[in-house]
């Protein structure tokens, strides 16, 4: 697919490869991946189990390093960063939404959202609290700020995770099967939330199994056997374009 040349490129993957060595057997999880994501895009990554989509998302989120290839993120050459520099970029540029929510159980909802902000030195406490409040308002969870994750339903936990992802105003939100652990009602609610974020200008990259969720993105990427086999606008995006 041709990207809109007027849009600023946020992510650029060039010839990315990822190999795993298990019991002296080399497994190619990703092979020659070339991908560009522009600012404000909403794309979904789909594919069968084991195709490498989660590995791709891990590489995009700097949670893992590629075996070879180049990765540019928001103007940084991510391939040459050390561990702490990668952590800084994750903190500032990326917001994560995980399938298993990954909230920390002994922190309250507000503390969970505040957590990534505490890793920044340029934000004081008052600012942090303002960001937390505004994030909670966006996901409609203000009334649950002092609760612990165990006191929330799955849908509510995922909304908190979304709030945490957006609290630091990241350049891109990476969502790994965000509705995978939710019932259809809560899944719908989370997807609506992502739509809303996108409309507000957020860049979102979502890995999903669910074709309906994938179809809500404006751009759909299909991965098979570690390769991108399709990269197209979704029907919804095409309809909007028309």
């Amino acid at each position: 697919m041709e990207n809109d040349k007027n849009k600023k490129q946020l992510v650029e993957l060039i010839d990315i490869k990822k190999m795993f060595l298990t019991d002296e057997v080399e497994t190619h999880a990703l092979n020659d991946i070339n991908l560009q994501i522009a600012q404000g895009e909403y794309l979904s990554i789909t594919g069968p189990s084991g195709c490498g989509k989660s590995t791709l998302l891990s590489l995009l989120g700097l949670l893992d390093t590629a075996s070879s290839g180049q990765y540019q993120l928001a103007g940084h050459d991510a391939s040459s960063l050390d561990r702490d520099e990668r952590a800084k970029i994750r903190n500032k540029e990326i917001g994560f939404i995980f399938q298993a929510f990954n909230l920390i159980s002994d922190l309250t909802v507000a503390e969970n959202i505040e957590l990534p902000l505490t890793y920044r030195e340029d934000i004081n406490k008052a600012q942090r609290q303002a960001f937390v409040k505004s994030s909670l308002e966006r996901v409609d969870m203000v009334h649950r700020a002092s609760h612990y994750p165990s006191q929330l339903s799955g849908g509510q936990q995922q909304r908190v995770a979304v709030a945490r992802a957006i609290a630091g105003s990241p350049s891109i939100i990476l969502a790994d099967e965000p509705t995978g652990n939710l019932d259809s009602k809560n899944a719908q609610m989370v997807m609506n939330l992502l739509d809303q974020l996108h409309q507000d200008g957020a860049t979102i990259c979502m890995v999903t199994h669910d074709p309906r969720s994938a179809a809500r993105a404006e751009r759909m990427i299909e991965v098979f056997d570690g390769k991108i086999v399709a990269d197209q606008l979704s029907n919804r995006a095409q309809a909007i374009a028309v």
Partner: protein
Amino acid sequence: MSVAIDIKYAARLLFKKPAFTALTVLIVAVGLGLTLYTYSLLNNLVFKPLVLNGSQPIIALEAQFDYNHLSRRAADPYHLFRANNELDMLDNFGIYEDYTALIGGTNSTSRKKAKMYNTTFTSWNIFEFTGVQPILGRGFKEQDLDTGAEPVVVLSHSVWQDYFDGDKGVVDTMVPVDSVMTRIIGVMPAGFAFPVSAEIWLPLTRSEITPTEQSRVSLFAYGYLKPNVSLSQFQQALDDLSADIIADLPQDLAWRIGSNGKYLAAMPFKEAGIMQYYPIFIAMFVVTFLILVLACINVANLLLARVNERHKEIAIRVALGVPRKRLILQMLWESVFICSVGGFLAILLAVWGLDITNSVFDSTYAISNSKPFWWQVYIDSHSLLVLSIAVISMILITGFIPAWRAIAGDFNAVLRDGTRGSLSKKAAAASQILVISEILLSCMVLIMATIILSTSYAASEADYGVETENRLTASLQLPQVNYSVRFDTEHEQADRFKRTEFYYQLKSALEQRPNIEAVAFMTQFPGTGGGTSHFEIEGRAAKVYSENPYSNNEVVGKDSWQAVGMKIVDGRNFDYRDAIPDVRSIIINESIARDFFPDNDAVGKRVRLAGPSGEGDWNTIIGVVSDTFHGTTMDSSSASYNSYHLMDAFGLSRVGIALHFIGDEKNVREALLDAVDTIDGNVGVYHLQSYDSMIKQPMLLVSAVSKVFLLCGVIAMFLAASGIYAVASNSILQRTQEIGVRRALGSSDGKIMRLFMKHASKQLFVGLVIGIGCAIGLAQYMSETMVINMNSYFISVLCVPLMIIAIVMFATYIPTRKVVKMEPSDALHHD
């Protein structure tokens, strides 16, 4: 069938990981082995009542324990009889006194040399009381106490074998006992040595058995409580009676009152004999119990870690519909196997330890032969019952908790995505408690072990202020019949000097021998004895006697210092001027002179004993002798302030002798025995040993106990180090995902390391504060009878926490570092 499958599965899992299995079995064996050993030891020595006749426990009745001298105190037999008759709470009752007596001698028909044996003078009913009758001849009869009755003696099995070669015709023959021809009337069965370590029994006189008034005589008593009378009820009644006795006690008998203002005391018979060791035994029991708890935590943690590894398998089983009970039982099988095998090994370990302990007891009492007859430790049915209870408890603690934890999880979540989310709040709290408990228990055990070890080492290395090399020591006892003192008569003085004359004659004879340099006499030589009394300095009396200075008092012969390496540093030595009756001269040691006469003017000053019963005669200080230390440096009764009186006018019936010799010690032993024999063959020479051996003697038991503490310390260290590491690393591994989340959210490695180290520091703080506090509390309890070396406090309270801090920091740093080094994506999907 299902049980068989479960057992087979548990066995397969254990064999699959032999290192894990061996480690857990070893921890269980060590924890249970130590517990079994300590319980058996204390049960035999203290807890299990002494029962000889049926099922009634024997109790001891005597005066309050003397904490100043760390010794039992006998009571006036008149008061003991009042307690028996007026309170009417005892079923049976008798009195006794332990002493030593010489069998054989110049009047003996035997060719054997006279030999000293532990002797109990006792009520005639002793054998009926214990329900043990002689195997040859008869026991005592009331008529044996009649005036003019023939003196009689009952022999122990060991004396019969040792001195009379097991001669079956020994009964009815005559033998000199302390030079008095005495008829042997019976031989007791092997092993019988009641009340403590008797080798021969002699009857007390009728006046002692049935006293009609208060006197200076002091005896101990044994008895059975009447049914429905408890020991505390009896003690309460004794306290009331003691108050009446004390109110009527004349001033010259006021010394009978204990330092706590009480007098008579009753206690289980075994406990009475080990009062000075009681706190250290209890401390040992506490430490061992803590080690068992530590072992439990370690094993529970290891099994818990395995449950964490198996959480997916368990989730599958739950999903397949395994009943909760069956799942718990299945998981318990592993614990059953580990704890049962550990329990069996524990028996072997305990038997080995008890064997060594019996050897230590034998060597401790080899010279005095005064080992209490019940000090034979072994595993009995009680011990096995305790072991069984401990094994079952351990199975429940180490198996049930992890099993419950395993099934309490959200199995659906586990199956759905294979991740567990971050550690639940309850699990996190449980991990924290485990780590804090490990820190706390390790801290207590290691501090206690370090204090005891360091203190006993310091005592063994202590400078007692004497030369011990090439010194032979022994005790001398004059036979009553030839050296009796006719008190309160015109002969008293002459009788006393007659006794002293013997000692000086012996000294003179020995010092003429070429291999003997010098001979000393002293009631208790430095390194032994101890015990303190207050003294008043003329013109400087304190308002209350107990605020006066105190010192240990010994009686010495003339020219005794040189033989043991002591010397006069000021004033003069004792000489003929001090041997005159009514002349009261005293030599003090340098410490007293330095601390109480700082102007260097001690010589010429006067001091006198001051106690609750009044003051003694004034003594003039004639000299100052070099410093020595009486008693072991570990005993709270030991003293560095020492005063010496000349023995001449005292007329001691027993005294210690030390010989400085050159050449072979064996020749000197023979020379001593030969010299005594030449002067008076009826005088007893016993406890022959080198000076070094004599100093070590009172510490042998404590040093044996300290070896147990050393073992406890080593085991605790192993359990603490491995346990803290395992618990901390398990707790961190369970937080792998959390670390992944934090890293995904942008935390740097350093921040995560600091977070975990800070968390560990908090656990350390809580664990160490409680652990140090409890250990100091326990040490204070031990210090009732033991002087805890200040260095050992310093070493233990500084080094042990430092070591634990290092272990915890290492145990936190390594696993955290390992998890932090994982890629966040791996950490997030860590299974």
